[in-house]
């Protein structure tokens, strides 16, 4: 006890000693709680200090609980001030993370589970389409674009496009045989595109998520052609 008193009077707390108050409050991590428990089991002086801490803990709670609660005046003043604020006409300056959190927090656990399952299924399906078609066409040889509109039932044979921005801008892409799923997914994300169709010729039709003029599509297709995993890219209607 005397050695303990001497230590406390002259030294800063050691690591475990410093954590005792958080242990009493139950706010330590599982790992730290275990370490503290082990230290308490082997050190009677530490255990005596911990007993004193638990008294402080309970009295602090009683003290704060005895402070009472505010009157309704505070709430009235608050909402009078809120009513005097300018009206918010639209969700403004709300961070994306807050919106995402808010959206998912409003869903019930069941709805969240169903939504997650659907999202996973969509990803798997898209990956599966890519995988199946790539496996069927892994010859590795370069082929000219063999997409023939006549291959598709009812497809238009015309590639004429207007000069106005096209809200369904598309391109045809053939991926290289050794292209990995993760690289394809990353490429789709970077170009803001989705696969909407695959053809028997091993091509994928990508649809871009924003309207683009003919010139813009040509520029994007040129960029796609230079991607390491793309074997061929052409504009499509």
């Amino acid at each position, binding site marked *: 006890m005397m050695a303990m008193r001497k230590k406390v009077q002259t030294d800063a*707390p050691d690591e475990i000693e410093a954590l005792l108050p958080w242990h009493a*409050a*139950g706010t330590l991590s599982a790992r730290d709680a275990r370490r503290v428990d082990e230290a308490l089991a082997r050190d009677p002086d530490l255990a005596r200090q911990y007993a004193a801490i638990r008294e*402080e803990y309970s009295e602090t709670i009683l003290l704060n609980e005895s*402070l009472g609660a505010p009157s309704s*005046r505070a709430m009235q003043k608050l909402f009078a001030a809120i009513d005097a604020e300018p009206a918010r006409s639209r*969700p403004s300056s709300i961070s994306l993370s807050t919106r995402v*959190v808010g959206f998912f927090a409003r869903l019930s656990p069941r709805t969240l589970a169903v939504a997650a399952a659907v999202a996973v299924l969509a990803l798997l399906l898209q990956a599966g389409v890519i995988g199946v078609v790539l496996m069927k066409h892994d010859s590795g040889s370069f082929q000219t674009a063999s997409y023939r509109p006549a291959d598709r039932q009812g497809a238009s044979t015309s590639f004429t496009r207007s000069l106005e921005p096209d809200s369904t801008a598309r391109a045809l892409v053939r991926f290289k045989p050794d292209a990995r799923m993760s690289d394809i997914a990353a490429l789709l994300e970077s170009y803001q595109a989705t696969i909407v169709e695959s053809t028997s010729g091993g091509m994928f039709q990508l649809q871009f998520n924003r309207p683009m003029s003919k010139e813009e599509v040509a520029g994007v297709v040129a960029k796609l052609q230079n991607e390491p995993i793309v074997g061929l890219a052409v504009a499509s209607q």
Partner: protein
Amino acid sequence: MSPAQATADEALIARIAQGDRLAMQVLYGRHHVRVFRFGLRLVKNEQIAEDLISEVFLDVWRQAGKFEGRSAVSTWLLAITRFKALSALRRRTDGELDEDVSNAIEDTSDDPEVAIQKKDISAALRKCLTSLSPDHREIVDLVYYHEKSVEEVAEIIGIPRNTVKTRLFYARKKLAELLQAAGVERGWP
């Protein structure tokens, strides 16, 4: 606070950011008492503490859109409360502060001795808790009553993690000294 309630608080903040008055009422209902008690322990004046609540939650109303969820909403509320309490203390005149200090001294000198006479160590401990310095009072309250982790306390007060631990240790030492002065021996230090 459970993870479920923490998530629910963030959902309320998201709705408040869109001007949802009802969400503000719910958030206020959940947290106004703790905000009041934390503020009161800092400013030692009920009127000022009540004004603090209005200011704190008005800030939340205005800033909800900027809350990024990196800490719990309750931690954010206490950080705002502390800032506003310290501002309120700086605004008070010297005369008002002297009166508060003299009241505190009177409380310290009388009641612990009375409590010991009645062998009420708990009451003595509670009185000594009110006699701690503001820095020591707030850290004791944040850890024991508001159940904040080392990291959360560091964020609220704006000090490093190690300083949080040593400050609480010295708060406890001071508490022990006050109790010893009042004739209470607890076996530590």
